[in-house]
């Protein structure tokens, strides 16, 4: 259930619809400071159902919507979608690809979709858990966070083992 494609539409510094295709193996993302590398990762966390906007470096969810640059006006909504490979049938859905997406507009209205069908956040979390994907899992290490695993308190660290066992 690897990520085959990420589509960022008006998400943070992505002021139009941008598609990123990914291979199954090892991809390095490079670019100048402020170019949008970490924003792609925020986009992945957004679709996976992360609730905390702060963990995506935004004061509120609406701050994730492109708010203008170089004369381009702010957008009304943002939508990010991930296409997962499902040839391993990790997801209990009978299709070789599974698309999960999330949209939010300036009024704060938020909607999730699974293969174009509306879904609730609970359904998303439930679906992802079949493929061992957790929006706050240790498979995503944000910028600057790597040493936090060693610096966190012992009880929180034990809870990580609770979750995977």
């Amino acid at each position, binding site marked *: 259930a690897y*990520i085959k494609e990420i589509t960022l539409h008006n998400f943070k510094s*992505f002021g139009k619809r941008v598609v990123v295709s990914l291979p199954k193996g*090892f991809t390095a993302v*490079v670019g100048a400071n402020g170019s949008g590398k970490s924003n792609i*990762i925020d986009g992945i966390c957004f679709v996976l159902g992360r609730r905390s906007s702060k963990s995506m470096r935004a004061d509120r969810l609406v701050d994730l919507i492109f708010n203008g640059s170089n004369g381009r006006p702010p957008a009304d909504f943002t939508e990010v979608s991930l296409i997962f490979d499902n040839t391993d049938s990790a997801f209990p859905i009978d299709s070789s690809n599974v698309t999960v997406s999330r949209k939010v507009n300036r009024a704060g209205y938020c909607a999730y979709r699974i293969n174009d069908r509306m879904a609730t956040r609970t359904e998303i979390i439930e679906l992802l858990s079949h493929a061992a994907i957790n929006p706050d899992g240790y498979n995503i290490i944000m910028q600057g966070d790597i040493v936090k695993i060693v610096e966190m308190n012992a009880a929180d660290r*034990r809870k990580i083992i609770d979750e*995977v066992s």
Partner: protein
Amino acid sequence: KLAVFMEAFEAINRSFKEIFSQLSPEGEAELILENYGDPFEGGLEIRAKPAGKEVRSIESMSGGEKTLTALAFVFGLARYKPAPFYVLDEADMFLDGDNGEKFANLVKEFSKSAQFIVVSFRESMVSSADQLIGVAMQDAGSDIVSVKLGGQ
């Protein structure tokens, strides 16, 4: 529940030790439960002993040593319960040249069984990738400006 936890703990600890000594040869590290009788009453400590040194409190470890220890933990978890993809954003920022290379080799090895998306400025990491994605700020904001197959 206890038996399931202990089985996970033992397996993760084994992998953690193996990967730590792969990253930090001659060093030793292990995971220690505060309360073996009732693990849910206590936490999980990490005890690391870099090469040639006494066991130290985690607090006194250097930035690079903490990074290697944390990576051994993350990859130890990955061995026990693999996720389909891993995303690492400049996790090599504190590593020196040698450790940066060891980390790149580790990612290369694990990327045979899981997808890795790694943001990095380090040559050793970038040159080991199967594919490079270039991001840049254009008129309409961020955009993907180039996609190269690795090794070219």
